[in-house]
């Protein structure tokens, strides 16, 4: 088992390296000199030279690459061009907000999506199934920024239950949670839709399996059959789907953070884009890559633990 975990962990390192290389190349391959893009057409030759030196663009590509990679592994993503502070520090300042939001979104997706998926599979083609399918279709096709605005109008402005600007003090757990609920629901809605669909179809497959009949023939109580025999098997593909959609969720969290005016990676990335903060953008791409690689690793490990056929082969 330790071997399995270690194995998957080591396997994700080359993946990460490959992504980092791509991030590095994208920044260099894009036509045009970053320095003149940042400073504009009217910049003096001297200023351009200066900036190139600060960015390390006057070095050879190989040197730049080595510096970039070693920097990443040492946790150094360079300094922001705009504020001059370390990119890493800026990221760490807002990362808890984004992590809160993403985890809450996934949890909402699982807590509502899995039971809903089970029910719609058990009572397929019933009225409940019909309603749930329409709702999940709406959930899937609804743009995240639009649902965010609707949520703010109803729950913040009209009912006044939640703050309009969801920042929240990280050190005050109650406030942190209170500020989290609305944006998390916005993110979670889509996840609920995905998870419901995945659970439903996975459950329907499992319910048709021969071993379900075997379990029933043994005279095991219905609830035990449902949870131990059916759900345990159905979870395996559901985990994969959840893992895949966490990537989508991270993308949606950018929109959610902006509409709710909530600190986070999403707001950082928009700010960097607006201000042409080249190092900040590159640093954020690195951070997002690491998040995705870690998510995949966790998905892989969970998958391995829920399916004995993976672990031992």
């Amino acid at each position: 088992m330790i071997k399995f975990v270690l194995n998957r962990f080591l396997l994700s390192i080359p993946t990460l390296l490959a992504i980092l290389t791509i991030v590095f190349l994208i920044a260099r391959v894009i036509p045009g000199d970053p320095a003149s893009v940042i400073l504009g057409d009217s910049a003096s030759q001297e200023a351009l030279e200066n900036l190139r030196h600060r960015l390390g663009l006057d070095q050879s590509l190989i040197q730049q690459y080595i510096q970039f990679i070693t920097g990443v592994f040492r946790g150094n993503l360079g300094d922001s061009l705009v504020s001059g502070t370390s990119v890493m520090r800026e990221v760490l300042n807002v990362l808890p907000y984004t992590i809160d939001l993403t985890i809450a979104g996934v949890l909402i997706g699982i807590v509502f999506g899995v039971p809903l998926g089970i029910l719609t599979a058990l009572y397929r083609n019933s009225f409940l199934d019909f309603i749930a399918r329409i709702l999940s279709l709406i959930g899937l096709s609804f743009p995240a920024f639009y649902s965010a605005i609707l949520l703010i109008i109803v729950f913040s402005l009209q009912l006044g239950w939640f703050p309009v600007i969801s920042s929240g003090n990280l050190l005050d757990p109650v406030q942190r949670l209170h500020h989290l609920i609305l944006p998390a629901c916005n993110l979670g809605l889509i996840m609920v839709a995905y998870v419901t669909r995945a659970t439903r179809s996975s459950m329907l497959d499992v319910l048709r399996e021969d071993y379900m009949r075997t379990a029933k023939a043994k005279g095991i109580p219905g609830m035990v059959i449902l949870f131990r025999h059916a759900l345990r098997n159905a979870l395996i593909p559901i985990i994969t789907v959840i893992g895949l959609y966490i990537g989508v969720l991270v993308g949606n969290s950018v929109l959610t953070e902006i509409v709710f005016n909530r600190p986070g990676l999403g707001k950082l990335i928009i700010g960097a884009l607006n201000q042409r903060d080249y190092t900040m953008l590159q640093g954020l791409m690195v951070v997002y890559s690491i998040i995705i690689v870690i998510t995949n690793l966790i998905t892989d490990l969970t998958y391995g633990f829920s399916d004995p056929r993976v672990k031992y082969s």
Partner: protein
Amino acid sequence: MNQEHLLEVRNLTTAFRIQGNLFPAVRGIDLHLDRNETLALVGESGCGKSITALSIMRLIPQPPGEIVSGEVFMKGIDLLTLPEERMRKIRGNKMAMIFQEPMTSLNPVLTVGFQIMEALIYHQDVTNVKAKELAIEIMNQVKIPSASRRFKDYPHQFSGGQRQRVMIAMALACRPEIILADEPTTALDVTIQAQILYLLAELKREYSMAMIFITHNLGIVASIADRVAVMYGGEIVEVAPVGDLFEKPRHPYTEMLLRAVPRVDLNIEKLSYIPGQVPSIDRMPPGCHYAPRCDLRMELCDRQDADLVPLPGEPAHRVRCWIRGDSREIQDKP
């Protein structure tokens, strides 16, 4: 009931809904099983053997299936009218089933040992430790090598033959009185088939169980069964003690089946096969189901189905055929 059987099925009809209409998959099944007895249920693929067994266990998938009529008495209690919770306590406990497909009938994410233990946990008042002990004991009995070590293994770590042993262990864990074995050896290769059959026969004797053994292999029937019921198109067409059936089959379909069994003492030219195939349940002929394939068929056969009646002087040998069995009724018909 003049004499109480361990299991008695009367007039059982189970139908499936296909595009809104109910079509019987098995019809008017009458059979009984006594203590220590093995009844073989034989017939071609699709004739309703599995559906009969699943109906007895009340395991018909519903929808699309439905038990339309009939009674299934076990020691005088009609199982079909029992509340589901009481039926659950019978399944796997008093009456257990072994399925055809050992590869897909075990749950891939639960250990083999746990799957054997499970029936014990829910049917018998035992602690987990005791259940585990009993499970290992029965794994030894079905001759799974190094049982206590393999207890924690998963189904994919077992071969087909071993999985069928696990299935047998699971079914026998609570020492049921009746075992329904649905082609337990069909999916296995020939040498392993013989081992499993031998094991099943041995355990059946040891536990003094009664067994309904489903197969389409008449060769197996001769060695394992006391009585044989031949099914065709969802009906029982002939029932007889095993010797009688092999020596003097009455139904034209049984005769055909027997002629289709490969024998070492006959060469291949003499081996006959049965032309045509079992009609699907939504295309059953209105009269005798076998009539379209029968050499002896008369006009009446196409019009009306015969009843399963005993032969004169042989109450245990019953046949559903206008020509060979139900002759007394031919006279009444215009």
